[in-house]
């Protein structure tokens, strides 16, 4: 790993205190460790895929990266400047630098404004374009660029008058309109139909290539993640368990969880079916996990050590990092 990456996520954690039950007796304070000591590095123009089961903290990580949420510990550095410092000094320029595309396009826009209003807002906020007329033109161009025809008509519509795919595209266009250098795409296609999601994916790819933006692509669709990203991080209960080149991770998974994940990931080609690796037990909760490897209770390959201590991360070559005791 290079040390001077554009984006550096340094040991970031987010613990939510758990509201205790309705007992009148005092209980010990518990935490949901949504994100627990995550470190990542992303280059300019790179797309990093983050995969993991639902509830493993992917969105929380995303929200921390755009500072919608304060991390409990750790910090994010953009171009070697701490983002907590950045946002304190100049919130506006930080917002311009970092953008997020949300999971749910249907809820990403205020239902009472037209698309025109929605799209010109960020331009207004960041004083892009000199006049209302000019901003309008920028929006029209953006819509055309996003393949939303006829742009004039779309601008006059309200969010509920558009399909999910169109909304998601607008969501991306809105994020792009301020020319961010770092974009978090939180499951941008999970709510969309297969027939339109290719458009979105291709749009993101174009974005990273043309504007040299760094993108974090959060998803639980592994095939799609591999398709779009250069590198992939696999998360389990708030921690990264495996990290590396995307083809490497998909074709040669080392962590038992990644292995299970990929084996369960069906292809539509009935011939491509592989032997599924089953994970036993209930899905675990992120409330005070540990002390050993978080995956250990469900791991088909666990050894005694797994239950005792959280494993250190080790490099199995080519920047392919794995956190598993058996490999350490």
């Amino acid at each position, binding site marked *: 790993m290079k040390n001077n990456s554009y984006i550096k996520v340094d040991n970031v954690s987010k613990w939510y205190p758990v509201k205790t039950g*309705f*007992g009148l007796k005092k209980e010990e304070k518990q935490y949901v460790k949504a994100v627990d000591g995550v470190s990542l590095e992303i280059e300019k123009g790179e797309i990093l895929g983050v995969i993991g089961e639902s509830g493993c903290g992917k969105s929380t990580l995303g929200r921390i990266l755009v500072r919608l949420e304060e991390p409990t510990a750790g910090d994010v550095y953009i171009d070697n400047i701490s983002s907590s410092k950045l946002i304190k000094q100049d919130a506006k320029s930080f917002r311009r630098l970092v953008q997020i595309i949300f999971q749910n396009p249907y809820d990403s826009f205020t239902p009472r404004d037209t698309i025109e209003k929605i799209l010109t807002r960020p331009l207004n906020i960041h004083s892009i374009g000199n006049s209302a007329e000019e901003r309008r033109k920028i929006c029209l161009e953006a819509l055309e660029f996003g393949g939303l025809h006829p742009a004039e008509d779309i601008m006059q519509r309200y969010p509920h008058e558009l399909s999910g795919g169109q909304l998601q595209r607008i969501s991306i266009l809105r994020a792009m309109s301020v020319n961010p250098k770092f974009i978090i795409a939180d499951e941008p296609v999970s709510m969309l139909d297969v027939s339109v999601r290719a458009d979105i994916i291709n749009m993101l790819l174009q974005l990273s290539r043309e504007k040299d933006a760094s993108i974090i692509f959060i998803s639980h669709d592994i095939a799609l993640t591999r398709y779009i990203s250069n590198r992939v991080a696999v998360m389990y209960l708030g921690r990264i368990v495996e990290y590396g080149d995307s083809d490497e991770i998909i074709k040669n998974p080392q962590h038992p969880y990644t292995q299970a994940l990929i084996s369960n990931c069906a292809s539509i080609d009935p011939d491509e079916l592989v032997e599924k690796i089953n994970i036993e037990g209930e899905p675990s909760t992120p409330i005070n996990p540990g002390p050993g490897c978080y995956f250990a209770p469900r791991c088909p390959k666990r050894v005694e050590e797994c239950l005792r201590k959280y494993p250190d991360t080790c490099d199995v070559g080519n920047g392919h990092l794995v956190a598993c005791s058996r490999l350490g």
Partner: protein
Amino acid sequence: MSKYIGKRVVAGIFTIIIAFTLNFIIINLAPGDPIKTLMGKETDDQQLRAALEKKYGLDKPLPVQYVNYLKTAMKGDLGTSIIYNKPVSKMIAEKLPATILLVLTAGILSLIIGTTMGIVAARKEGTIIDTIFSGFSYILNSMPSFWLGLMLIIIFSSKLKILPTYGMTNPRASLTGKAYVMDVIKHMILPVGTLILVEIPAYFRIAKSSVLQVTNEDFILTLKAAGMDEKKMFNKYIFKNAILPTITIFGISMAYLITGVALIEIVFAWPGTGRLVLTAINQRDYPTLMGMYLIMSISIAIVMIIVDIVYAMLDPRIRY
């Protein structure tokens, strides 16, 4: 939870103290004072006024009065009524049962009736029944309570002659035991009825909207698909989900009505705290007013906490 309650209680005490102070200031700064009542309408003897002001300490500066009053209040003593020369706590204690009887009966009944109407209207949304119930609730909502009360008196006491006109008991008879209870019940019917009619719209509205909302929840579909009959589904599942918001209304109206039933208590000559407050207002009986408003503040604060606790008990999702 206990920590949460503790925090709420502390906040509540602060709130009460602030409200108490504001009450003191507002009540004392507002024009008028109890001396006029003591002197009688017919005289304006300045000498008498000065003597009375001195006697009740009203000649002192307001901050001094406040500190003095606070001192006695801290000891749990609400002071003595200037007008009736009677301990305020005793006067309130005498009147509170009558009001609580009225308010609680009416509160519970209107909760039941209003909610039932709301539920029925929601289940038959868009039908004649819904329209009738909603119209009824609009009309009740726009009706002054004294007018309603008088109407009921005219109909049931004057025209039909089946119910007593006023009061809590028959003044001519000194009844005891069961006969007394029956007498009180007979006297309660009209004021309780009026209060119920006044309170129905609030419960109706909240019940109707929350039932409509719950009926559209996804889990209802599951139960329907499972073949559960409407009645059971309603009684057990929709009801428990929809009833939650009414609890807030119920709690707050209980707290408010301790003084808020004044108009109805006047129309029906019901000897309760609402009238006590209104009389105290007219006479500017400062200690009684402070006492009553303090009691009301405390009940509002308590009700707020209780509502939250009850909510948490009924709704397993809420945790503190």
